[in-house]
Structure formats: C-alpha cells, structure tokens
C-alpha cells in the first residue's frame, strides 16, 4: 500500500515536472530550429502557410467554387500534414498539461481573429510564406526575400500593436462582452484531461504507422515532425509574434533572444546542407525580394498581432481550444487560397520581386557573416531595449 503510494507520488512528480510547468523558451526554440534543419535535410523546410493554402484550395474545390484538378489531398500534402501534426501535438500537450478548454472570446475579438487571418493569408502569398516559411526558413536558406519579410514583420508588428493600444484606450468596448469557456480542467487534482491526452498521444504515435502501412512513409515522417513542433510550441509557448512585438511592448527580450539564437542554428544547418550540395542552393529562395517580402511581411505582421498568433501560432493555439484562432486559421486558409488564385491568374506573382540567393551577391563567407551578424544584432538590440526601455509603448 505504502509502496504503491510512493510510486504514485513519484509518477505524479515526474508528470508535473514535464506537464505541470512551462518548458524553457530558449532550449525549445533551439530544438525547433534543429528539427527544421532535419526537416529540410529530409525533404523541405517548415512553413505553415502552404498547408493552410492547401486547406483553402480543398475547401473551394469541395464547394465547387474553384475547380482544382491538380489539388493534392490535405491528408497527403506535406504542408497540410505538418499542420495537422502541429494541431494534434498541441492538443495532446494541452490536454496532458490540463490547459485545454474551448474558449469563446467576445465578438470583437473573434472579428479581430478573422481580420488577422485574412491579412496573414494574403501577406503569406506576397512573401511566399508565413513568418516561418517566408522569414525564418527563407533567411536560413539565405534568401534575400526572407530578409525583406523580416523588416516587414517588424513594421507590421509595430503598427498592429499601435492599433491595439489605441483600441484599448479609445474603444475599450470592442474587446468587452460575454465570453465562454467549456471543457476546462478541474481546479483540483489531475482530472480527466491527462487521460484524454494519453489517448491522443497513443493516436499520434499510431497514425504514422497507419500512413506507413498504406505506403505513405514520407507522410508518416511529416506527421511526426508536426507533432514534435506542436508539443514543443505548446509547452514552451515560444512565439515569433512575441519576438517581433515584445520589444515595442514591455521590452521583455526572452522570445526575441530565443528567435535570434534559433535563427543562427537554422542558418548554420541550412548552409551546411546547401554548401555541401546535399540540397540545391536555390531551394527556398523565393522571388519576393524586395516588394513581396516587405509588403507581405507588413500585412502579415499586422495580422499576426491582431489575430493573436502567426501561421504556426494560430494552429497550435487552435489546438489549445481558442475559438478566435479557429476563425483565424479558417480565414487564413481562405485568404491564402483566394489571393494566390488572383495573383496566378493575373500574372502578378512574378512581378512582386526577384529570387536572390545572398551568396550569389556577396559570396558565401560574407553572406553567412552578415546574416549571423544580423541575428546577433537582433539579439543585442532586444537586450539593450530590455535594459533601457527605449522603444516600450506601454
């Protein structure tokens, strides 16, 4: 009896260690970056936007609005499977940590979620990716378009934050109103959420085996990558929106520092793969320099601050049960699909910029030095601002 109690105590203690408290942000960010390098080595880098666009394409095809004979099923398309894995991983982690609840925000917030999704969807088409694919993975691939999007994201995050501050001071009623929460965890004890979490954990481990047994081995791996991203992001709450927004808000630098370190890890990994010809140097170098990257980044930056999550952030928070992000995800998918359709049919996609591989301009050594220096500068800027509070808006 006593022994059983001791065992229970030990298990609960270990469980609380992993799921009872948030994981450290910087190690989680470095792990995300390392996984992104592995993902690129395996097939392609991480982005959330192409999978969301695939969902939008699928929806329009299903409704008969736009016939897409070339569409790949969302259950088989790599970007879509990564997103499904992200959603399932975050849902599993939220249940295991008793943080899942269906949370319905006041109507004004839901509207902002929708507007945020629309802006992010169209911005991701212009910049050839969301803040993960168009910025993080693109800069790692030494694409100049990624650098243009980085600048755009900073400008967009600043503008979005200025709007939110204005709204809170001048239109506080917009975020007021009834909100609802369902299926939340019990206040005391473990409750049943960890049990459901364990069931989902078994399911997300079994699903890749199912894909594999059906002959879709590559898809099985994409699903596992997505699940890993979902668990890591939900438990650490590492957030690129915060990395861009926080220096202008409270000045807190943790997420910006984490993003800058993760970027260096990813840049070094991608560069090794490209320099050694394991991957083509032109991979993930998009024709978005400079107009598409910059303007897409601004639109995306405003959208992610209004929406409360970026491409990946919206998906993992949707898995945590935030209805505002469910709306953001759906409208992101619709907007990305529609904008892309309009741009392709109008022949505009080739007019938003040119593809420039940075080493082609300044050489490998200088390109790597400059991009790593930029990340170091971003890190130091965040630390300087945290100490001085120069740019803090609140």
């Amino acid at each position: 009896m006593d022994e059983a109690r001791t065992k229970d105590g030990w298990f609960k203690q270990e469980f609380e260690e992993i799921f009872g408290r948030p994981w450290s942000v910087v190690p989680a960010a470095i792990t995300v970056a390392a996984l992104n390098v592995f993902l690129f080595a395996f097939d392609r880098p991480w982005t959330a936007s192409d999978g969301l666009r695939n969902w939008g394409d699928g929806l329009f095809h299903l409704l008969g609005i736009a016939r897409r004979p070339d569409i790949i099923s969302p259950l088989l398309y790599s970007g879509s499977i990564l997103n499904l894995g992200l959603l399932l991983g975050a849902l599993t982690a939220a249940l295991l940590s008793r943080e899942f609840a269906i949370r319905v925000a006041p109507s004004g917030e839901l509207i902002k979620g929708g507007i945020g999704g629309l802006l992010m969807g169209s911005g991701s088409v212009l910049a050839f990716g969301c803040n993960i694919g168009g910025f993080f993975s693109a800069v790692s691939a030494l694409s100049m378009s990624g650098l243009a999007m980085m600048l755009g994201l900073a400008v967009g995050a600043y503008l979005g934050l200025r709007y939110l501050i204005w709204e809170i001071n001048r239109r506080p009623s917009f975020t007021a109103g009834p909100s609802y929460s369902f299926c939340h965890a019990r206040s005391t004890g473990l409750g049943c959420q960890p049990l459901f979490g364990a069931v989902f954990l078994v399911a997300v481990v079994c699903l890749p085996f199912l894909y594999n047994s059906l002959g879709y081995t590559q898809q099985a791996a994409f699903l596992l990558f997505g699940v890993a991203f979902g668990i890591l992001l939900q438990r650490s709450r590492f957030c690129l929106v915060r990395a861009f927004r926080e220096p202008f808000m409270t000045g807190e630098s943790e997420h910006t520092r984490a993003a800058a370190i993760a970027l260096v890890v990813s840049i070094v990994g991608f560069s090794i793969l490209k320099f050694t010809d394991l991957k083509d140097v032109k991979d993930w170098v998009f024709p978005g320099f400079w107009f598409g990257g910059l303007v897409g980044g601004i639109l995306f930056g405003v959208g992610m601050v209004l929406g409360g999550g970026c491409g990946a952030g919206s998906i993992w928070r949707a898995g945590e049960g935030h209805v505002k992000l469910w709306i953001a995800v759906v409208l992101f998918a619709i907007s990305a699909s529609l904008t892309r359709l309009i741009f392709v049919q109008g022949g505009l996609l080739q007019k938003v910029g040119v593809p420039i591989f940075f080493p082609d301009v300044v050489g490998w050594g200088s390109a790597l030095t400059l991009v790593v220096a930029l990340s170091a500068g971003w890190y130091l800027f965040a630390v300087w601002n945290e100490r001085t509070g120069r740019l803090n808006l609140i």
Partner: protein
Amino acid sequence: MTEQNKVGLTLDCRGLLCPTPVLRISAAIKQMEVGEIVELLATDPGAKNDILTWAKKANHDLLKIEEEAGVYKFHVRKAG
C-alpha cells in the same frame, strides 16, 4: 481579505488572448493610486507568464495567481 489587500478594480479579460490582458492591465494601473490593487481574470494559459513578466518589468507587486475552473485570477498592487 484584509482592508490592506482590498481590490480596487477588476478587469475581466476572460476569452482574451495575448497581448490584450497585459495591455489592459497596463493601461488601467496608470489610472490607479500607488498601493491600490487591481484584479485581472483571464482564461488564456499564456496570461500566467505574461502578467508575471509584465509585473516584474514594471516593478509592480504580483500578490497572487490563482486558478479556478479554467479562470486565472491575478492580484497586482501598484508600486510607486
């Protein structure tokens, strides 16, 4: 609750996501007197760390974080 710890203002941020709870408490506390306590209710799990970090950076005292039925309750005393 003692008179000294009496809540002067309650901000209902249930259903609101990052960064709105921090923006709301930051704007509200500016209108309060030193020593007054503001209570914030939130449902976003991210609010735990957000309010903790903000209070630390703004030098306000985070007196309490409680969780009940999916609602996080924060008490912050305005510092001088």
